[in-house]
């Protein structure tokens, strides 16, 4: 019985934290947000060198063959540093699609490139976790029609697209008939947008069970976003505590006031059990198939709620400074906001958790 991280897992997190600090941390994120470059090739390259892009890809395909819990631990660090790097789509959901539904040729063609960071894969399935504006994709005679919004890891070379029947398809970013429209969202660290398919020739992933693969992708994607929120919220709490210790009002550090202390304690008390929830949900993805989907829903919904609470409370502890661009706390606030809505907001995900347990039709 061991419910905790191994030495290797702690080392992975430490190595990733060192690397992300080395990229410049918030300064790198600011440069990304301000710049025209919609990719951060230096960050992606570094992640590839650390094995993070190929974390769950088998060694035979150039990856390191680790677990989805390891991937969640990586996502946590990316959230902590509000890093402008693609991850949940290209390093987790797309490889899962290829591994679970792709044939040997498709796996050999793409997995090594994703592992090395030579290619980035976006994932277009948000219509299956709640369609907005009537979006959705249909497959007819080997061609895709329709629209997919809020693509995860949108700045990509390749898209994994789920159609309305939960069939999966590969589409090159430059495929004829595919139109990309960039979106601007609150979160400048993760570019997104929509894809319009006008009879785009697509390559189906049909070697495995498509709907099961889609289920696994959604579950894993949700746990990655939950882990990202865990990291971002932990950093916001750490920043709030540090700020409160340094900020002096009424002749004393505001950290000595119970009103401020209790705000920080409430953040810590809500957040600390979330760490275990994310570990469990991450572990369940690989090892507890009967619980995996429900736990992914709970991790996603609960981290969304706690993350939102921490994001607001940490900002308040910083007073007026928290509201400014000077401190940059808003990058974390917005990151948590993105994680909350993408792949199903908390209400939608809780409704799904009830259905999965047979408590609702």
């Amino acid at each position, binding site marked *: 019985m061991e*419910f905790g991280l191994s030495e290797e897992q702690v080392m992975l997190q430490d190595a990733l934290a060192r690397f992300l600090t080395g990229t410049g941390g918030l300064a790198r994120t600011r440069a990304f947000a301000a710049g025209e470059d919609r990719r951060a090739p230096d960050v992606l390259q570094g992640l590839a060198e650390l094995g993070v892009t190929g974390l769950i890809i088998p060694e035979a395909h150039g990856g390191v063959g680790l677990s989805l819990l390891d991937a969640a631990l990586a996502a946590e660090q990316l959230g902590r540093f509000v890093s402008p790097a693609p991850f949940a789509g290209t390093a987790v959901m797309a490889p899962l699609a290829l591994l679970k539904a792709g044939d040997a040729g498709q796996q050999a063609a793409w997995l090594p490139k994703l592992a090395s960071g030579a290619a980035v894969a976006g994932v277009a399935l948000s219509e299956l976790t709640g369609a907005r504006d009537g979006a959705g994709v249909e497959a007819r005679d080997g061609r895709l029609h329709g629209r997919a919004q809020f693509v995860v890891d949108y700045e990509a070379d390749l898209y994994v697209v789920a159609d309305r029947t939960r069939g999966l398809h590969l589409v090159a970013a430059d495929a004829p008939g595919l139109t990309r429209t960039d979106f601007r969202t609150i979160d400048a660290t993760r570019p997104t947008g929509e894809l319009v398919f006008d009879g785009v020739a697509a390559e189906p992933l049909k070697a495995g069970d498509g709907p099961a693969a889609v289920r696994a992708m959604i579950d894993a994607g949700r746990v990655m976003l939950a882990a990202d929120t865990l990291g971002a919220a932990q950093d916001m709490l750490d920043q709030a505590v540090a700020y409160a210790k340094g900020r002096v009002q009424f002749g004393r550090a505001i950290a000595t006031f*119970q009103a401020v202390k209790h705000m920080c304690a409430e953040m810590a008390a809500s957040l*600390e059990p979330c760490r275990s929830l994310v570990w*469990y949900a991450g572990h369940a993805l690989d090892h507890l198939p009967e619980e995996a989907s429900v*736990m992914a829903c*709970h991790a996603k919904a*609960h981290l969304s709620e706690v993350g939102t609470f921490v994001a607001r409370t940490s900002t308040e502890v910083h007073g007026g400074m928290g509201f400014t661009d000077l401190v940059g706390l808003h990058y974390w606030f917005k990151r948590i906001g993105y994680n909350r809505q993408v792949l199903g907001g908390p209400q939608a995900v809780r409704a799904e958790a009830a259905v999965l347990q047979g*408590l*609702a039709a």
Partner: protein
Amino acid sequence: MDLSYSPEYEAFRTEVRGFLEAHRSQAPGQGGNGLTWQKLLIENGYAARTIPREYGGYGAEPDILKSRIIAEEFARAQLSPGLGGQGISMLVPTLLEVGSEDQKRQFIGPTLRGEMLWCQGYSEPNAGSDLAALATRGVLEGDEWVINGQKIWTSTAHLAHWIFCLVRTEPDAPKHEGISFLLFDMKTPGIEIRPLVDMTGAANFNEVFFTDVRVPAHQIVGRRGEGWKVANAILRHERGSLADPNVMQSRLNALIDLMKAETLDGSRVIDNPVYRDRLMAIQGRVQALRCNDLRLLSAAVNRQSAPLAGMVVKLQGTELRHELEGFAVDVMGELGLLYGDTPRLRGGGSWQRDYMYFLGLIIGGGTSQIQKNIIAERGLDMPREPKLARA
């Protein structure tokens, strides 16, 4: 990460199940007697498991996983896990740690067997969250302590044979260093007990008044002025036990059953998406605390530390339980108001009772506000409030 139990533990689980099957009829509530059941559990190592044999326990090596398996299997069989109470859960561990050899021999055995019931004399009207401000005085006269003062919130004082009590014996020492930990018989002349009815309608608490209560000098645990240290070791013990996430899980399951059974305008409450959303939100939080509990269990087994994870249990657990029980009352609506011996009562009134009872636990055993101070100061390393200058 490995959530499986090794064959040794699986075998142990089978053994516990076998015992429970074979002896079910001897359990209290199944026709058996509580004291006989306790004796049987101690003989088989399912109660007082790690307490040395010479003091009346079973004498096994501490094994957190085996203790957990015992707890799980008794809960699963819905049979009494043996006697509890403050003597067994708080005094016995304290005596084992700091009691004299004579005290261990005199008190532990009868306490474990349920022959000696204890109450805890800590809180006072003017010493609640600031427990170390307690003012009950103990003055040494010859070879006796003479005790005067008042305790409050004293659970089971009306049933207890003995009390373990914090008393100020060194009035000139700093407040944390002037307290002693005394043991005495509740039949000693000069003790008056007045029941204190709480909001649930029960009188589990009491006020206890001491007027010239004379206690033999040797009935002190630790040395004079060390009572605060002695008491603190077991207060930590109490806090974690107030919010068992496995109990929370069974309460959640009962809530789901309730929502399937209760109707609103002819439809099951579980079929109403507003109620269902709230249920799922609570379930998510219960899961988070269960995972946190798993982490604490694993950390204890593998000798790792997760201090913050431990510090949040009392705060989060009691608050969530209060909310869960209150939501069940909402599920029943007006029917949730029914309480006591009345028609149409659901679940014996347990939802409403626990809703109120857990408000008591949010306050008792270190209030939520005190828990937040602990989390901030010890967990997040935030500075203490500056002390006011003495007037």
